[in-house]
């Protein structure tokens, strides 16, 4: 099973991919506190969708396990998995452990 650091690397890679397509002024910070969704997030909706697709694909590729990040389970969490990189990491680890 993937550990916390490996999951973070996957999310960071997805954020870096987004940054590759952005100008110097629009770069997203890449750290565990980066806000992915909500009023403080710097990702627009399509960028968030791209991030989710990238992360789901990479998790599946590396772990061999499908993790849906936008199903009812994800949407019903008290704290949104997309609040930050940390919450998303924790959510993915939770789903991988099930």
């Amino acid at each position, binding site marked *: 099973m993937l550990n916390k650091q490996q999951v973070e690397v996957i999310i960071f890679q997805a954020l870096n991919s987004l940054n590759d397509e952005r100008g110097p002024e629009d770069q997203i910070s890449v750290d565990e506190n980066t806000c992915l969704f909500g009023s403080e997030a710097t990702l627009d909706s*399509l960028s968030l969708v*791209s991030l989710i*697709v990238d992360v789901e*694909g990479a998790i599946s590729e590396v772990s061999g396990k499908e993790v849906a990040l936008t199903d009812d389970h994800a949407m019903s969490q008290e704290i949104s998995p997309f609040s930050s990189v940390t919450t998303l990491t924790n959510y993915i680890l939770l789903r991988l452990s099930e």
Partner: protein
Amino acid sequence: MEGLYQDKNVLVTGSRRGIGKLIAEHFLLHGAKVFGFSLGDALITHPRYTHFQVNVANSESVQKGFANIKSVTDCLDIVINNAGVITAQYSMIMPTAAAQLMVNVNLLGPFFVSREASKVMRKKKWGRIVNISSMAASLEPIGDSIYAATKAGVATMANIMAKELAPLNITCNTLAVTAIETDMLKQLSKAKIDEVISSLPIPRYAAPDDIFNVLDFLVSERSGYITAQTIYLGGVN
């Protein structure tokens, strides 16, 4: 025309017979590498044709089909959502299973395929998705309540996906075909079809080239500014 699609990877659903087979053969003729999805095994034999048995109405089956494509290439340029089924019957006596099958294959099928295709296309930031619809969506003939609704539905779906995917340079359009002599048409009353055909502004059956002509336009490099459009053949509108 010969090498028009020589650098393109194309997916055609419902490629085993009918319009889908004709479309797959058209792209092969013009140099494309073609992937075909259908429930049955391949009926096309060509060095650039790869067939996968996929039930487009089942999202897991579609995902497996795309995993198979991705094992061959990470690039998909063009998708033709053609797979479809029809049962024409008065609504009061339409079997539930037939109604559900039409929704699953004709509407959810293109959704599942387009969803997975757009994930692949976004990497290259280029893609063309064309849904095959029907004149029934506009003519609303008796007996086609569910079939016509699913075919109108795919056009609406394409229009919305067109907005979502425009930033990724992926276009989504719909080609609404008139009757063409295929296996699917044989399931319907010839008298009924002839009656519909005779009422069209151009009262004849569609020829394969009528379909290829519009497809070539919609998927061309130059059609990057054409999206969320439905083109009807034969003067239907």
